[in-house]
C-alpha cells in the first residue's frame, strides 16, 4: 500500500512540476513578457535567454498573419508584418511561441509569452536628453527624438554643434512641439532659454530652471534654484542640494516676469512647477530651508495653489501630501492630461529623485485624493522623470532598474481605473543595446508630433539669434528681483551666477 501511495504522490508531484515548467514562459531580454503594448510601437526585438543555438519564434494573435522566424538567440522582428499584426489584434492578445532546435532534429517548445495590445496608441514621438552619468564635467550631451513606431533617432540639438555648451530641459505645451522651449548654457550666449514657435526660434535672455507651460500657452511657470552637486561616501554617490529656490512666471505674450509671493516664500524652497490641464491649479513641491549638513533631512511637501488666468489672482496654498505625514520627499508632480490623476515621485530626501534609489512613482486620484504607490511599475532603483501621453493612457518614465547606474525609458499602460501594467523598456533594433550603452536617458517626454525645428536653427538661435528678447522685470518689485540663475548641466536646474543675490518678495 505504502509504495502505491508513494508512487501516486510522486506521480502527482512530477505532473505538477512538469506542468508548471511547461507553463513558465521562456526567459527573454529585455523582459517583454506579460506586458501591455501600444498598437503603434516599433517591433519589440529580444534575445532568448534559454539554452540552444537555433530557435523558432512565432508571433501571432487571434487575427492577422502570424510572423514566423527561425533564428539565433537574437530575435529581430520585421517591421511591416509586425505593424500589420498589431493593427489586426488591437485590444487583443499577442502571443509569442518559442521553440528550440532539438538535438535529434525537430523543435522543442519552450513556452509562450502572452502580451496584450492596448486599444489606445502612445504618442508617436519621444524626446529625451542623452548623457553619460555626469558629475561636474560634461563634454557631450544632446537632445534626441525617437519615432516610437520605428527605431529612427533624430538629433534635435547636440552640444557639439555649439561649442560643447549645455542643453537642458525641454518642455512642450500639451504634448505638441510648437511651442516648445529648451534651456541652454553657452559661454558666448550666456544662459538663454530658446522658445520655438511656428518654426521660429526666439532667444529669451533669461535662464529658467524646471519649467511648465500653462495650457493656454500664454505663460510659463519656472523655478529659479541655487543648486549644488555633492557626494556621499556610501550608497548613491551623487546628490543635489537646493540652497534656495523660488517659483516665478514668465508671461510669453507680454514678455514679462512675475514673481508671485505665494509661490516664492522666503521661508520655503519651492520647485517642480506643473499646471493642471485646465490651467486652474499650479502643482509644486516645497520644503523648509535647511543647511547642507542636514541634506538628508530635507523633505518636500506636495502642494498646489489655484490660479485665475483672467485676473492673475492666486488662491491659498494647499498641501496634498505633507512630508511629515509620508516621511518622504515629493518631486516632479505631473497631472494627467484628462485631469483625473497626478503622478509624482517620493524619495527618501531632497528634490532630485534620479539620484535616489529610493525614488518611486505614486499616483493621486484627484477626485478622491486617494494616494497609491504604483507597485506594478516601481523597482528597487530610481524610478522618475515620468510623462503622460496626450490620451492619459500611457506613461513613460526613466528607471535605473536594469543596473542601478543608467536610466532607461520605460512605458506603462494606465487603464480607466488608474491601474498600471508591467512596464517595458523602449525597444531598440539591437536587443542587446542596453547591455553596453553608456548613456542615460534623461527627461523622456512624449509628443504627438515630431520636432520640426532643424538643429541648425537652434544653433543659430544660440550663436547669432535673429529674434532675441529680454524679459521685462516684475514691475511690483525693485532691482533686487533680477535673480540671476545659471542652468546646471547635471541637474538641469539652475544656479546663481554673479549679480545681485536672489531676493525674495515680502
Amino acid at each position, binding site marked *: 500500500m505504502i509504495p502505491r501511495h508513494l508512487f501516486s504522490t510522486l506521480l502527482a508531484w512530477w505532473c505538477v512540476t512538469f506542468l508548471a515548467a511547461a507553463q513558465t514562459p521562456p526567459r527573454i531580454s529585455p523582459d517583454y513578457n506579460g506586458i501591455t503594448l501600444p498598437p503603434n510601437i516599433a517591433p519589440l526585438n529580444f534575445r532568448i535567454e534559454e539554452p540552444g543555438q537555433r530557435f523558432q519564434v512565432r508571433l501571432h494573435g487571434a487575427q492577422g498573419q502570424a510572423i514566423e522566424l527561425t533564428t539565433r538567440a537574437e530575435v529581430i522582428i520585421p517591421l511591416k508584418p509586425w505593424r500589420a499584426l498589431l493593427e489586426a489584434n488591437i485590444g487583443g492578445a499577442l502571443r509569442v511561441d518559442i521553440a528550440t532546435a532539438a538535438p535529434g532534429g525537430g523543435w522543442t517548445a519552450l513556452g509562450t509569452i502572452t502580451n496584450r495590445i492596448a486599444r489606445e496608441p502612445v504618442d508617436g514621438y519621444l524626446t529625451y536628453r542623452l548623457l*553619460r*552619468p*555626469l*558629475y*561636474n*564635467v*560634461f*563634454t*557631450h550631451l544632446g537632445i534626441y527624438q525617437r519615432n516610437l513606431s520605428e527605431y529612427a533617432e533624430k538629433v534635435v540639438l547636440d552640444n*557639439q554643434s555649439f561649442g560643447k555648451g549645455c542643453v537642458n530641459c525641454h518642455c512642450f505645451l500639451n504634448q505638441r512641439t510648437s511651442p516648445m522651449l529648451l534651456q541652454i548654457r553657452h559661454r558666448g550666449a550666456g544662459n538663454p532659454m530658446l522658445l520655438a514657435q511656428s518654426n521660429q526660434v526666439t532667444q529669451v535672455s533669461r535662464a529658467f530652471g524646471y519649467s511648465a507651460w500653462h495650457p493656454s500657452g500664454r505663460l510659463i511657470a519656472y523655478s529659479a534654484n541655487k543648486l*549644488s*552637486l*555633492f*557626494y*556621499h*561616501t*556610501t*550608497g548613491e*554617490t*551623487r*546628490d543635489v542640494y537646493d540652497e534656495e529656490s523660488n517659483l516665478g512666471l514668465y508671461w510669453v505674450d507680454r514678455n514679462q516676469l512675475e514673481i508671485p509671493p505665494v509661490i516664492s516664500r522666503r521661508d520655503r524652497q519651492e520647485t517642480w512647477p506643473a499646471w493642471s490641464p485646465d490651467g486652474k491649479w499650479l502643482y509644486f513641491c516645497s520644503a523648509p530651508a535647511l543647511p*547642507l*549638513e542636514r*541634506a*538628508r533631512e530635507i523633505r518636500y511637501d506636495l502642494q498646489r495653489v489655484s490660479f485665475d488666468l483672467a485676473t492673475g489672482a492666486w488662491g491659498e496654498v494647499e498641501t496634498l501630501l505633507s512630508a511629515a505625514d509620508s516621511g518622504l520627499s515629493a518631486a516632479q508632480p505631473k497631472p494627467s492630461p484628462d485631469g483625473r490623476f497626478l503622478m509624482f515621485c517620493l524619495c527618501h530626501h531632497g528634490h532630485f529623485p534620479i539620484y535616489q534609489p529610493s525614488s518611486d512613482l505614486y499616483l493621486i486620484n484627484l477626485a478622491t485624493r486617494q494616494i497609491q504607490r504604483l507597485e506594478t511599475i516601481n523597482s528597487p532603483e530610481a524610478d522618475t522623470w515620468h510623462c503622460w501621453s496626450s490620451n492619459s493612457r500611457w506613461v513613460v518614465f526613466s528607471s535605473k532598474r*536594469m*543596473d*542601478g*547606474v*543608467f536610466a532607461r525609458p520605460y512605458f506603462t499602460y494606465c487603464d480607466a481605473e488608474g491601474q498600471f501594467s508591467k512596464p517595458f523598456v523602449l525597444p531598440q533594433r539591437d536587443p*542587446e543595446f*542596453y*547591455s*553596453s*550603452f*553608456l548613456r542615460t536617458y534623461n527627461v523622456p517626454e512624449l509628443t504627438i508630433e515630431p520636432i520640426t525645428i532643424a538643429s541648425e536653427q537652434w544653433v543659430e538661435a544660440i550663436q547669432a539669434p535673429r529674434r532675441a528678447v529680454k524679459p521685462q522685470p516684475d514691475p511690483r518689485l525693485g532691482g533686487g528681483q533680477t535673480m540671476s540663475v545659471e542652468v546646471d548641466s547635471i541637474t538641469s536646474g539652475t544656479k546663481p551666477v554673479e549679480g545681485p543675490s536672489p531676493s525674495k518678495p515680502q
Partner: protein
Amino acid sequence: MADSQEIRYFAGVHPNRPNWSRLDVLGTAALGLAAFGFFWWLDPALQYLCRMPQFYPDAAFLREFTARPGGLVAYAANYLAQWQPTAWQGALIAALLLLIVCALARLACGWANAPRRFPAFLVSALVLLAARYDYAWLETALGLVLWLGGVLGFEAVPLRWGPIKWLCSCALVAVIGWLAGSIPGGALAAGFFLSEGVGGKRWGLGAACGLSGAVIAGVLFRFDSGLTMGARVFSRSNWVVWLGVILLLSWAAGWLMEFALEQWCKRRLAPVPAKPKSAAPAKSRPAPKPAQWPAWFGRAGEYAMVLAVFLVAAMTVEQSQRSRLEMERCASRQDWAGVLDWAKQAGPIPKPMHLQLHRALYHQGLLLDQLFAWPQTSAFVLLPGPEAGFQVWPVLSATLLELGQPNLAEHWAHEALEVGGERPDLLLLLAKINAVKGKLPAANVFLNRLRQCPAGRDQAAAAGREISEPSTEILRLRALKVNSDYPASRIPVSVLLQQALLANAANRMAFEYLMAHYLLSLKPELAAKHLGRFKDFQVKTLPRHIEEAVLAAQREALLKTQIPPEVDMAGFTIRPESRQRFERFIQLLAQHKGDVVAARPALAREFGDTYWFYSIYETTAGTPAGLKLEKSP
C-alpha cells in the same frame, strides 16, 4: 612621340612609370625590415598606451567621426591602432604603411616628374615622427597614403580636356579633404599645381587646379576641428624645432654628400682625353663621352639615407616620455617595482605618474621610508582634486578605490570617462568599482562595452571572470569599503583617510597615506600622535620619515616651550643614526646661522631626501637616480 605616349597612357601604362630594378627590390626589402624592427623596438603598445585610441564598431561611434573633415581617417587610424597592444602586429602595420607611402610616393614622383628624393624625404619624416610617442602617427600615415593616392588618381585620369581635369581635381580635393582633413586636401591642391604646372608645363591648368583646390581645402579647414595632420606639429614647437632642424640638416648633408660623390665620380670615371697625334681637324674626331654617374649610385644613396634616418630616430627617441609610458604600463600590470625602476629614468614626473609613484612606494613598503627621496612639493597634494587635471583623475580614482572609497573613485572615474571617452582602462576601472560596490549588472554594462573594443576583448573576458566569481582582489576591496557617509562637495584628504580607517582598522594603505599626508602637509605632530598604530601593522622599527617627523616635532615643541616634550613613542625608539643625522642637519643649519637660502645647497647634498629638508623648503632635492629601493629594517 606624343601619339605613342597617348597610346601608352590609355593602355594604362604611364610614360614616366618608374622601373623597378633589383636594387629597388633589395632596398625596399631592407627598408621594410628596418621599419619593422624600428617600430617593434619603439613598442607600438606604448604608443597605444600614450594615446589610447578608441574604436567601437557601431553606427553611433562612427557618427562621431563623420561629422568633420579628417574624421574618417581618424576612424581608420583608431581601428588600426587596436593592433598596437600586440607589439609585432602594431609594428607590422606601421611598417606596411611606411612601405605603401614609399611606393606611392615613388610612383607619384615618377609620373609627376617630381624630385626623386621626395619619397625618401616622406619616409624619413614619418620615421622621425614615429619616435614621438604622442604623435598621431597612424592618422598622418593614412593621410599621406590618401594624399598620394589622390595625386596618382589625378595623374591616371586619361583626360585631355583641361576643364574636365580641373573639375576632377576639385572633386578629388573635396573627397580626400573630407576623408583625411583639410591639410592633406590643401597638400593635394599643391600637388596638382606642381604636377600640372611644374611637371607638365601646363601652367594655366596647374594654377586653376591649385587655386580651386586651395579654396576647397580652406572651406574644409573651417570645419576641421580635428586637424588630423599637422596641427600637433605646429602646436608643439619644443621638439618640432629640433626635429625640423635634424630633418633639414640631414637632408642638406645628404644632398651635399651626393653632390660631392657625383663630382668625385665624374673626375674618377671620366676618360682622360688623349692628346691629338696629328693636326687633323678636330671636328672629324668624335667628342669624348661625358662622365656617367652610375644610375644605381643615387638610388642606393637614398636607401642608405633612409636607413640612416632610422638610426637618427632611434637616437632621438623621447626617452623620458618612454620611461613615463613604461611606468604607466607597469602600473596597469601592478608591477610596482617596475614603476619605481622606470620612474628613476623618467625625469620630471607628470602628475598622474606622481600618484602612481605613491601607490608603487606603498606597495613596495617604501612610502614612509622613501617618500621624500622622490620629487615632492607642497603644491601637489597626495590626493588632489579637479584642479589637478583630467589626466590625474583615472589614477586618483584607482587610488581611492584601493583606499576603500568606491564612491569617490566612481566620481573621478566618471569625470575621466566624460573627458577621455570610452577608453578601455576607464571602462575596466568603472567595472571594478561597480563590482566592489556590489552593482554587478552595472559592472557588466561597462565590460560589455569593453568587449566591443577590439583591443579590450581579452581584458573584458578576464575582468568578467573576476567579477562573476569575485576574485580575492574584489573581496579585499569590498572589505575595505567605508561604511559611514560624509556628504560634501569635497572631502578633506585627512577625513577620507580617517573614514577609511574607521571602517576597517586593518586598512594599512589608508594608514600609511594618512601618515604621508601629515608629512606632506607639514603636520609632524599629528604623525607623531599615531605611532601606536604602527604596532597594529606589525611594524618593528619606525619608518625613516616618521622618525624624522618625530625628531622635528620634538625640536619644534622644545623651541616653543623650552621644555623637552613628552612624546608617546608607543614602545618604539628612534634609531641612533637618525638622531645623528638630525644633529648634523641642525649643525649645518647653524653653520649658516639659520639662513635657509644660503644653507640650501649644503642641506640638499646631504639631506635632500629627508622630511627635514622638505619641511624647510616645501620641496625635495633628492634625485632618484642613485636611489636604493630598500626600506627600513
